[in-house]
């Protein structure tokens, strides 16, 4: 292929910052001040090429519920306290990264989830950092 084809991005969701909802009669003078749109993709995603969507299937992390969509930035370097996605056994887990005082482990915020340590010949395989949660209410 000669020219790099500008490859498709997910379609932006545009929400006008200011818009008149009255359709009849004169246009609202506020319409003159419409400057831009809010794009949820740019609001929630830093690096669309390296961001993936997955779904939580438990309540291990406070604020993330079963059925929530999570956005994972795979390019981002994980730091202590980040919610991360990690490869564990034959699948992926959603946990909080603990990386302090010489201890490296994956923890759940809620009780009932065993700690996943990085010890011996087992190293943590962090797949990406969770940067946002998306949940529909209705």
């Amino acid at each position: 292929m000669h020219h790099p084809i500008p490859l498709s991005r997910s379609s932006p969701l545009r929400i006008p910052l200011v818009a008149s909802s009255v359709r009849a009669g004169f246009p609202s003078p506020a319409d003159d001040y419409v400057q831009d749109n809010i794009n949820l993709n740019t609001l929630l995603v830093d690096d669309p090429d390296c961001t993936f969507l997955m779904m939580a299937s438990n309540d291990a992390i406070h604020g993330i519920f079963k059925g929530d969509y999570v956005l994972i930035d795979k390019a981002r370097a994980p730091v202590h306290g980040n919610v991360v996605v990690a490869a564990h056994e034959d699948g992926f887990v959603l946990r909080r990264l603990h990386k302090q005082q010489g201890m490296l482990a994956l923890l759940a915020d809620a009780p009932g989830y065993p700690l996943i340590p990085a010890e011996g010949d087992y190293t943590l395989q962090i797949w990406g950092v969770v940067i946002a949660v998306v949940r529909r209410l209705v």
Partner: protein
Amino acid sequence: MSTFALVDGNSFYASCERVFRPDLAGRPIIVLSNNDGCVVARSAEAKALGIPAFLPFYQVQQLCRKHRVTVFSSNYALYGDMSRRMMNVLSRFAPVQEIYSIDECFLDVTGITDLDSHGHRIRQAVWQGLGIPTCVGMGSSKTLAKLANHVAKKRPEWNGVFEWDWLNPREADRLLAEFAVGEVWGIGRRIAEKLTLMNIHSALDLKQADPRHIKRKFNVVVERTVAELNGVACLALEDVAPAKQQIISSRSFSRLVRDLPSLSASISHHVARAAEKLRAQGCAAGLIGVSIRTNPFRDLGQYHGYTCVPLVHPSADTLLLNQAAQAALRAIWRKEFSYHKAGVILMDIGPATRQQQDMFSPLPDPKRSRLMAAIDKLNRDFGSGTIKLGAEGLTEDWRMKQEKKSPCYTTRVGDIVQLR
């Protein structure tokens, strides 16, 4: 002096599968062609087991079972999306990029001072950001960059990045001598055979051949390859073997088009036109890209859908190409937009005869080639479009056997990974 980089994904299809299956790290993986016919991709571990490429699956099934090889049907939605992401990431590392195939691209890295660390940054960005391992080859011509990529891939001591300038001329020549002339980019099997008869066996032999003699015996393309091996860049990123490497057919609509059937008809039309040109060159295409876009000058929702579908066997058959194109169109079409332009791009174009070396599953029906020749003749004699594809050629009878297909992790919401 120019410097080019050729970056490609290692065992790309197998690597894409592994991104979402970390349990398969270090395990052998193979990917099957359309209809689960033959092996089209192998992870390094599968290659090490001696599983050959392009063999019918049933012939290696037992070997796979014995060594617990994980087998996948091809998941082009996944590979296409990962390819798009990889190309976007790679485009950040150079002002000019030429996407050469689904898993490789050239970058113009002229003027970048520390190419060693640049190459490693490229690998790191794709590995960290997408989980795909890559190799980077660099040289002062595209042909040398391609060869450097082979070195980066096959010699682990270079850690996946190699540039010819790191060697002194004598060492470089010694390395060139280790490549058979047929491994040089653009030297096909027939030219390689002829060169061998002229006592030109290695890439080094070709580099040292007399260009005028080569031009007389072959053509200006092979002469250019000699120059390229000598570090003289003859091929810019825009002009890879003109007319042969890709064929584009696209056009704007007279009015905006919303519905799938109209787009579908337009895509069929473009496939028919492009395929006719392809056959006129005596070539077959291995990859078909479909592009649809909205009008950037209208104040409406903007969208550019693009994806490409690799064909198992390179083909010049309008019906086969159209089936692939229609599948691609269905994957990128979004009903909420009005479209302004649609088109197809045929890529990975080579001589129609090359099919035979890759093919173990049934060859295309020779009657079909005669049918295509007849269609072309009618259209030439009686005007373009005299014979067209019927609607039955456009629709749903293309149901592939894909028993081991992985989920479309990145393109279908119902298929996303569930986190525990």
